């Protein structure tokens, strides 16, 4: 008979980009999360393990178009490759969240509206460069020899109105939080990396994309000419997946214990964007973000494209 619960435990993997072919890197993070969860369950904790797929963005839209199918139908097919692999690997996740699900979209829109109502999101004109394959904006100083610093491909110049989250105002709060909590970012080398990054000024975060450029995303509730930036959409899975905003107890039990396992390529999004977003929403940061390393295969370093199993951006 299982004795009384020792407490709550919550572990996540990144939600994987549905268009990707499941790789050893996806398997690595997911196996680690599974082992941790199973261990905690055997210790007597009530443990919740969430994984899922990131299903919005240009590449999904384009891939669906090329096959002549609806983007959602395309995702429905692609997601099975992940779900069947997790079954074969004996992964004991409690839930699997897909960002195209109504339960997720509802929470993203609710958070956007709330942030907008409280002045945490504002409109401004955006000037800079855009990398189409990475679906990512860059400023002049980010560029590497005039190209995308992540994939080294050509970028296009862009001038348009967009919506921004006031990330900059949380910079000193974030530095203090990282300094006070030495287990917030692990391993320590990654923690130092982010503290170093935060020495420079933190800018506000562009969180919208005009529909004329991207239709396959979550519509911004206060301006229907726009959809939500993929990262803003994707990160919210960690709270939408355990019922944030639904009034259920599960959320308040599990959220304070959250441990995010990630690959080191998505460190900034998880330790800068995400905690400041949560601070804006009025939620506490996750308890721990642990960034693991990369695998080479038979001694060969993987090129950029191959490295990005975990995410489409750097």
């Amino acid at each position: 008979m299982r004795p009384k619960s020792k407490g709550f435990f919550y572990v996540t993997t990144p939600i994987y980009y549905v268009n990707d072919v499941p790789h050893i890197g996806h398997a690595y993070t997911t196996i680690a999360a599974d082992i941790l969860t199973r261990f905690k369950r055997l210790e007597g904790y009530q443990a919740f393990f969430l994984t899922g797929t990131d299903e919005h963005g240009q590449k999904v839209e384009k891939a669906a178009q090329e096959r002549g199918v609806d983007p959602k139908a395309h995702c429905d097919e692609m997601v099975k490759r992940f779900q069947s692999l997790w079954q074969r690997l004996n992964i004991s996740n409690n839930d699997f969240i897909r960002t195209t699900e109504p339960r997720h979209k509802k929470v993203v829109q609710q958070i956007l509206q709330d942030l907008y109502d409280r002045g945490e999101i504002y409109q401004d004109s955006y000037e800079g460069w855009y990398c189409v394959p990475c679906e990512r904006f860059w400023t002049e100083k980010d560029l590497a020899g005039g190209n995308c610093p992540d994939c080294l491909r050509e970028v296009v110049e862009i001038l348009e109105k967009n919506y921004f989250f006031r990330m900059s105002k949380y910079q000193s709060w974030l530095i203090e939080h990282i300094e006070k909590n030495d287990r917030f970012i692990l391993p320590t080398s990654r923690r130092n990396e982010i503290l170093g990054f935060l020495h420079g000024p933190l800018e506000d975060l562009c969180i919208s994309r005009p529909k004329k450029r991207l239709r396959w995303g979550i519509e911004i509730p206060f301006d229907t000419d726009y959809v939500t930036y993929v990262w803003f959409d994707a990160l919210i899975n960690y709270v939408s997946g355990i019922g944030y905003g639904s009034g259920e107890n599960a959320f308040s039990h599990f959220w304070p214990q959250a441990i995010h396992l990630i690959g080191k390529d998505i460190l900034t999004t998880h330790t800068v964007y995400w905690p400041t977003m949560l601070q804006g929403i009025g939620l506490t940061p996750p308890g721990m973000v642990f960034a693991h390393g990369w695998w080479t295969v038979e001694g060969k370093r993987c090129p950029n494209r191959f490295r990005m199993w975990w995410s489409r951006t750097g």
Partner: protein
Amino acid sequence: MSKSLQNVVEPNRLIDTYGADAVRYFLMREVPFGLDGDFSHAAMVNRINSDLANDLGNLFSRTLSMVIRYFEGTIPAPSPPAEIDRRFQEVSLKVLTQLPEQMNNLSFHRALATIWEMIGASNKYVDETAPWSLAKEEKDRPRLSTVLYQTLESLRIIALLLAPFMPSSSEKIWVQLGMEENLWEQNMEENGKWGGLKPGKKVVKPTPLFPRIDTTKISFE
């Protein structure tokens, strides 16, 4: 990286070749979580043959075979422990104290190394107590019972500790030890304590847990 190199580490193919538990074990054991690592088939095969087939697999099959041979598969009741038995029991206690801390630090490779210390200690215990010699004399029967009970009991604890890492192999060990309780409803602290195995229960004839991989029979291109 070439397309073909990508294919040979496609997870479904790795599972087809090595099995899900071996893949889980290798990825967690080979590299400290947080550092970069290299995947090679040679390293994978080496881990399977030495850690899984040799250390764990052999311990399991030789222990169960002896229980079947000397006690018709019935788990014998131990006599009062000798000094060597007590020292052996202490290893499991040490492992059980170290593991939670290592897991809290997501130090999976250390946790596995710690569990393997116990597997190593069990193999050493069997070698030193030499149950095959004890089986020759009727007067050594109580001693034989103790030694085999102790080894079976260590396997029960090993199955429990390994369950998060290798769920299906651990379940196999657990069930073949005659354990009727659901492995996933155990509590590590409570059920990790020495003495949980019940004498009188029947063990099952062991099936090979991790067959050795013949490197000459595997090709990846």
